[in-house]
């Protein structure tokens, strides 16, 4: 992994963000209605609309708006929300923190549960665990989050009362309560991923188990436990790392829904609110942050891969 490679990849991240910003900005230009309409609602008179548009800078040509926005972003200023008048940067950083907490917990859950599940299923092919995991994975990827989330909420919160239903509690406010509040959203958002990853781990493990070098290791007389731990796991995990990073994209989408259901004021909610209120700076920045998260996750995955897999050398 050379510095040149890293710079090139960072350049690609920047290119990604530029493309995303152009796409999002382009779409917002053709979205019907604007922030002034949604701000004023039923009280929009022609003169009020004009006044608000001037105040928000919406009366300028699109290219000028984009340029202003872009030059702001370059200097680290994401502008102010058209809806609340708050600075976008700090607000979104807070929101991002909450979303990343959910996302990180979900990924952690996936790694802690789905990966061993997939490995065990592969080692005991056709066994009860394999069949169970298979069934779970089919169900997991077949129900939308808003359904699974609602069902979990009814079961675990409303009927059994084990967990608080919804809402967000900051870790700094009350760590124990915060964790309790995290369980349901994390579970909901990670179900699809767990299904996907456990299946992936299973098939990768099966592939590795059938590879020549594992056969060779067995024929060298290595005990099975040693083969699994020393030889199989690492190689089976390699493609999983990449897929896990790609799944971050899916996770970010899932978070939009989960935050809506569980009242978590994260980046997903920010996006939805920004779209409905046509809050361009907020929407732009939120989309950009999501894209950057995805791009950086993939960059990190590639870096992790180059550490895990000696065959991969970036230059």
């Amino acid at each position, binding site marked *: 992994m050379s510095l040149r490679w890293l710079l090139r990849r960072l350049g690609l991240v920047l290119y990604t963000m530029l493309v995303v910003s152009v796409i999002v900005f382009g779409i917002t230009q053709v979205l019907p209605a604007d922030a002034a309409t949604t701000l004023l609602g039923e009280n929009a008179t022609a003169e009020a609309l004009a006044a608000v548009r001037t105040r928000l800078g919406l009366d300028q040509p699109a290219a000028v708006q984009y340029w202003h926005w872009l030059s702001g972003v370059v200097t680290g200023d994401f502008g102010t929300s058209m809806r609340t008048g708050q600075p976008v940067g700090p607000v979104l950083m807070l929101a991002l923190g909450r979303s990343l907490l959910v996302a990180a917990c979900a990924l952690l859950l996936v790694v802690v549960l789905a990966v061993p599940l997939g490995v065990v299923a592969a080692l005991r092919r056709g066994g009860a665990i394999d069949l169970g995991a298979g069934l779970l994975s089919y169900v997991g990827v077949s129900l939308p989050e808003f359904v699974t989330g609602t069902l979990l909420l009814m079961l675990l919160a409303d009927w059994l009362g084990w967990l608080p239903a919804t809402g967000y509690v900051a870790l700094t406010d009350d760590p124990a309560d915060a964790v309790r509040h995290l369980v349901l959203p994390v579970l909901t958002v990670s179900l699809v991923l767990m299904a996907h990853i456990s299946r992936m781990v299973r098939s990768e493990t099966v592939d590795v188990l059938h590879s*020549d070098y594992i056969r*060779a290791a067995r024929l060298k007389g*290595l005990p099975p436990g040693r083969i699994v731990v*020393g030889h199989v796991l690492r190689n089976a995990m390699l493609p999983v790392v990449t897929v896990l990073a790609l799944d971050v994209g899916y996770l970010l989408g899932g978070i939009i829904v989960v935050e809506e259901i569980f009242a978590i004021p994260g980046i997903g909610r920010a996006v939805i609110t920004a779209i409905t209120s046509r809050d361009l700076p907020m929407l732009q920045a939120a989309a950009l942050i999501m894209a950057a998260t995805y791009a950086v996750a993939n960059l990190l995955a590639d870096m992790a891969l180059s550490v895990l897999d000696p065959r991969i050398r970036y230059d």
Partner: protein
Amino acid sequence: MTPLLAVEDYTLGYRVAGAVRPVLKRLSLAVAPGEVLGLVGESGSGKSSLAAAIMRALPRNAREEGGRIALEGQDLRGLPERALRPIRGRRIGMVFQDPSAALNPTLTIGRQVREVLRLHRGLNPAAAQAEALDILGHVGLRDPAAILRRYPHQVSGGEKQRVLIATAFATRPELLILDEPTTALDVITGARILELFATLLRETGAGALYISHDLALVAHVSDRIAVLRSGRLVEQGAARQIFVAPQHAYTRELADAVPRPERRLTQSTPGPALLELDGIGVTYGRKRLFGPAPAPTVREVSFSVREGEILGVVGESGSGKSTLARALTGLVPHADRLRLRGAVVGRMGRDYRRAVQVVFQHPDASLNPRHTVGSQIARPLRLFGGDVREVPRLLEQVRLPADYARRYPHQLSGGEKQRVAIARAFAARPALVICDEITAPLDVSVQATVIELLLELHRLHGTAYLFITHDLNLVRQIAHRIAVMQAGRLMDLQSDTAIAAGEGAPYTRALIDASPRLDLGDRP
């Protein structure tokens, strides 16, 4: 005396789609202590399945239907996994065909060697490291410490195979199973590995089962040879004996199919220059910003092919011979300095395309699986103004039934596919056909018929061939002249008579010496 390994009346099948397909049929053979038994057979003969059966590493769908596999009298069949572990790797060592596939790509070589030493010799880490250095030095690896630090992809195939052989011998096994250990290697490297192997066998006194499709090679290393065909033992006997005086027709057929340079198959005389290459160079990849320019794969190659000439191009893998073929067919960009019948070839136009045809190495990849054989042969006819009704004739020419036109490639065997590819090339009535390792993936007997076919077409149409191969023995049988390539350069260009007379560059001679020959003495 108890044989080291005894396979008695052994029958094996694979369960596929509900039915059991037999693989080995009532097979019996034995390896005495210190003896090398060569096991020869073509693909599908069941020789690798036998190795798996001995190692007790059969796939799940394998069905053993009787017989015995005994190591020093102890039947291995029915031994539990736990009891097999001290046998595998310690009492029976194994060396695989592809050294790259036999090593875990993400662990250092050192770790994989030490692992075996610690397991089977009970060494502590430091002792294992010392022993690893010692055995690697013993197999002629120059910097054992460095090799141990490296990952498998960082060392060459020959080095990897040396490591594997060293490891296999390090546990002092009684029996070694070698499954085509040199096939994936270059000729010269392969020859050295064989020498090493012979030395180690001598030193340790271990017995060995040497599995190969290459008769010449097996004849060199084995004390005795067993010939396997469709799961049945056809014949076995002393190594020399079996080819000089084969008892069985199949054995004779096999022996005859082995290329022998002294048996010339071509009698024609080439005409004037057809295709002239003037300093052809090929460079893959492009220069990146800040990066060094990539090194050329083929540099400054100049020679010419004459009308009706068979020009052999030999070289080891990576020497640039296949790239040269791709350059001449316009598949890779190159410095365009070509003359066809004296006329400079600018952009490869219709005339050039028609005159120069290509047949690739892998028949599976060179035929489009989604098109029928007929439509693929018809394509050049359509392109170059031939008559589509000629397809049956073209098929007949490559000795395939006319109704094959309606078949899809996956319904054909490897040899048949290669014939279709040849028919397709000849559909354009070319002046030159580039044959890129076309016999490499084929069994010896099939290879012989394909060569025969090519020569017949050559006699019939006077077509010139640029015959690219790594098999020096083969090319010496058919080529008028032989070009030797190394590291992208043309090292040598000699007529067959000059080669036979022992002339040529040192590298050419080294190649010739490394090619194992089946010496059958005066047998007609």
